[in-house]
């Protein structure tokens, strides 16, 4: 089954990315994790996102387009990146979620992809 690992990160995580003292440890953790995922051959897609302040939210209501600065919801945890992995079942997907650096600092949501006809 295909699952998306929706990796949320804390405000502090986003700051760590460019922090001269913390960034090395931050990126080393992610590189090791991504390395392990690739090693296992389970990754179908993936990507990291820039910090929430770079987000722009668009809504269309009754023909009117409203564009707002910032992410959809202002919360302590924001989407930082994602992977789509193919594994046998939820337990395997949860196993990968648990190893993710942001499972410690924030959270990882695991959701199966809708399987399309084919």
């Amino acid at each position, binding site marked *: 089954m295909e*699952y998306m690992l929706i990796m949320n990160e804390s405000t502090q995580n986003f700051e760590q990315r460019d922090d001269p003292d913390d960034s090395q440890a931050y990126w080393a953790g992610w590189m090791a994790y991504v390395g392990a995922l690739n090693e296992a051959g389970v990754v179908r897609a993936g990507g990291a996102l820039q910090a929430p302040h770079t987000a722009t939210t668009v809504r269309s209501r009754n023909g009117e387009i409203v564009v707002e600065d910032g992410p959809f919801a202002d919360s302590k945890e924001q989407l930082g990146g994602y992977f789509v992995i193919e594994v046998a*079942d*939820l337990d395997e997907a949860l196993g990968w979620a648990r190893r993710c650096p942001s499972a410690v600092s924030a959270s990882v949501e695991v959701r199966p992809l809708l399987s399309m006809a*084919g």
Partner: protein
Amino acid sequence: MDAYRAAEEVARTSYGRLVASIARSTRDIAAAEDALADALLAALERWPVDGIPDRPEAWLTTVARRRVIGAIRRAGTASRNQADLVRLRDELDERTESSVIPDSRLELMYACAHPAIDRSVRSALMLQTVLGLDAARIASAFVVAPATMGQRLSRAKAKIRDAGIPLAVPAANELPARTASVLDAVYAAFGTGWDDPDGTDAKRRGLTGEAIRLARLVVELLPEDAEARGLLALMLHSEARRPARRADDGSFVPLAEQDVSRWSPPMMTEAEHQLAVASRLRRIGPYQLHAAIQSVHNRRIVTGITDWRSIARLYDGLVELQPSIGAMVAQAAAHGEAENPAAGLALLDAIDESLVATYQPYWVTRAHLLVGIGDRTAAREAATRAIGLTTDSAVRRHLLATLPTDAGPSSGPDRAETP
């Protein structure tokens, strides 16, 4: 045996085994249950004509599996379903050749008690899929509307199917935690019956008997798990006292006043046996300690006295292992008996206040111990607070009847018994 009775017998004794076996490859428990129901109907039509098959279980499984395959074919061509179809066809071929239906009930239980399934529905899910209890019966035991329970159960089954929760024994590193969650779900089913022991209406009597069946099954499937045996022993020791928990007029009888001749020696013997086997496995855990505590209580049937010092020591161990509010209050009560009421009160005072505001046993225990040190005014206040938090009407009547007065005989409220 006539064909109808034969079908009924297989449905009753093999329900969980058949559902688990049919659902294992698709993870679709609802579809497996529907298919099994269809297969049972087919059996009622065919068996009176063709005779009861040599292997009724295999017959039902094969028919049910064909129904599942048919349903998937009709549902269309989603790729996941295609994969299921291939697996099911393979299984169908294997099964036709071998006569043994593998027992996947343990795998089914792990799926029902999976951490991705909401805790509040795990017991109900297990009772339905493993024992075949209907939603209405489960709903009445959990005191919710049957429609609500039906919805919760189908939502949980959909989660297992759609999220890909495996019907499998977890990996070794997860096994202890996952087994604990299976045991907790079984114990929660037992709890439904414990709070409502009146037993006047079979439907409302709760599910203690069913929970014991589940625990026996877990012990059978996980014979090396000490806590599974501890849980079974705990439930048997508690259940052994059920007939004594109410007087003939339905009034509540506290443990200390129970007529031990109404306890069930066979259940206690079985409990002791399980506990002995568990202790030889040398992996102590909370359920074994709980069971050991009930075992000491039940020894009164032989010795005529309650060994409060042993009970207090066991609660000390339990609180160290698992400091729940229930264990801490019971520990205080035990020390109150083993030493003196002041010692018990000191332990109660040490409990975080935010935990006790709505915890009825705390206030019952507090009232009892306050009577013991002669502070009847404070005892009355605590007992009143306990009455306000009591849900069991017989216990409420008992507490009202024994409410401490400012003077007079110091009977005091007795602790309500909690498993």
